[in-house]
């Protein structure tokens, strides 16, 4: 059972909330405030799960997600997307990108729409990495 979870979100309040949920449930939280820092953290820290927001400045969650899932070594890192964007809209955006010639990526295994309750979030984390 892994317990290192990286939270990538530009909103400090969301990071604070998520890391608190993680701590309360016995996980070790890591934080990044944009996709760029997130990718570096993933390489350096090799977390068991990445909790990812979609809309962020500097580098979006979509870009980070696609980079991860098309990366030979990192594609098995588990990702839980937590976003204000609905899952349907997210999937549509990925289809559109694929149609424009981007490499196809698998659908995210775990997806939660904001606002998310602490216990629902904890349940999903547990489902993802036990």
């Amino acid at each position, binding site marked *: 059972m892994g317990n290192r979870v990286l939270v990538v979100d*530009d*909103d400090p309040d969301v990071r*604070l*909330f998520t890391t*608190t949920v993680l701590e309360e449930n016995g996980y070790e939280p890591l934080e990044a405030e944009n996709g*760029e820092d997130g990718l570096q953290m993933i390489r350096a820290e090799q977390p068991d799960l990445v909790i990812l927001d979609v*809309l*962020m400045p500097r580098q979006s969650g979509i870009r980070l997600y696609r980079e991860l899932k098309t990366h030979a070594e990192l594609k098995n890192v588990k990702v839980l997307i937590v976003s204000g964007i609905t899952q349907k809209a997210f999937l549509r955006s990925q289809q559109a990108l694929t149609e424009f010639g981007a490499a196809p990526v698998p659908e995210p295994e775990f997806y939660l729409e904001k*606002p998310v*309750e602490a216990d629902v979030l904890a349940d999903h984390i547990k489902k993802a990495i036990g």
Partner: protein
Amino acid sequence: MTRILLIDDEPDILRVLSRSLATDGYTVACARSGTEGLAAFEAQRADIVVTDIKMPGMDGIEVLKHIKARDPDSEVVIITGHGDIDSAVEALQFGASDFINKPVRDEAMSIALKRAEDKIDIKRQLKEHTHDLEHKIETATRELRRRRNFLGRVIRSSNDGIVATDEHLGIVVFNPGAESIFGYPQEEVVHKRRLPELLPENMAASFLQAMTATDGRKDWPWTETELVSRTGERIPVRFSASILNERGQKLGAVAFIQDLREIKGLQLELVRSERLAAIGQTVAGLAHGIKNVLQGLKGGSYLVDVGITKSDSQKLQKGWDMIKRSIDRTSNLVMDLLSYSKEREPEYKECAPNEIAAEVCDLVRERAQQDRTEIVRDFDPAIGRVCMDPHTIHTALLNFVSNALDACLFDESAGKSWQVRVRTGAEPGQSIRFDVSDNGAGMSDEVQGKLFSSFFSTKGHRGTGLGLLVTRKLVEEHGGSIEVTSRRGEGTTFSMHLPVRTQARPNGPPRAGQTATAREFAAKEV
């Protein structure tokens, strides 16, 4: 060939004359009495009847009367006894074309026949001519009537008001369009009133002047103005007029008037419905913003819960702070939404646009430093104190500058030094221009197209999604306009033009036409 009917009771004369006429090329029929002659004439018309005057039974004069009554176009030549002037005169009175004395000489006969033939010819020509003329007049009259009806119908069915006058400006045409604008029925106006009575003073004067002056005004091009109806209602119209001239003579005047009440109403309606639609679209955008705010509230309460359960005052504090921030965000959102949906008149007062721009730059200084973005001030010192709505300038500039900072923050290119430039400049025509340029991410055509119409967030949890809508509304109400130029990867410039009021007028009404121009935003590639 000319047909001749010869009537004489003396067979010898008949024989001699008929033979001689036939030799001259006439077709000749003979009769030996007036009765027989008339019967022959009845059976076959002759062009010329040559009849002896003295005959037993029906005499030549009787024959003449009958023939003329039967066919006035037939010519009758009377053969009279030598020296019988009275009979000859009588014959002429009854319409004989000529008379020949007995004994008939060939020469006299041929002259008489020639004259009769000429007469027939002239009559025929005259008849043809008259007939032709009558036909032409009839055609012309019909055409004239048709055109008159057509023009009448055109004038009547025109939606525009049409008023035409004679040379004294007395109204002669007043169509239903004019009736509905002025509120007078045609019967009360045509031949009863003069055009100047229906117009505002200055327009009335210009018509009177144009009619009397030798080289006066001839045209009034389309202008928007207001007319006052019978009931005193002020009617917004487009008005144009001309003096009607023919060969330098003034015939009258004609005025065309378009009723703008409906259009003005529709414009207002359009502004309102656009606003409603924008609000509808904004609600969808809002949902995203609200989700983030809700997340903050839920997250904050979770932290507070944890803090209470564990008596962890630090968690408690952080949770409470998060709740407070979420409340702030909620209030921003609600205030923006309110100010967007509320009608507001600009509050014009004396202010210094450069000072307001400087205030805005000061406000965002801290945030700009955090984002490693430089704020450059480029103010035109020629702008002093002017009469404008400072709230509009402040809100719009703050919105543009915040957007510009976001555009730099969202720029993913590495090693760039980001810059936001705030420029002010006096423009000719009493207007001030404000430019806010950044060298950040720039916008795709798609994003530019959606800037003002529908809010869709590209900013994650930042902003309320109403900023530009609120700004546009304020600028429109100020009679100004906004332009956007942007190129992806190179940056964006928002330019705002705000007119300066010449004097402070409390609650000055937005003038007609301003909203329309302000709504024309140009989003174009540089």
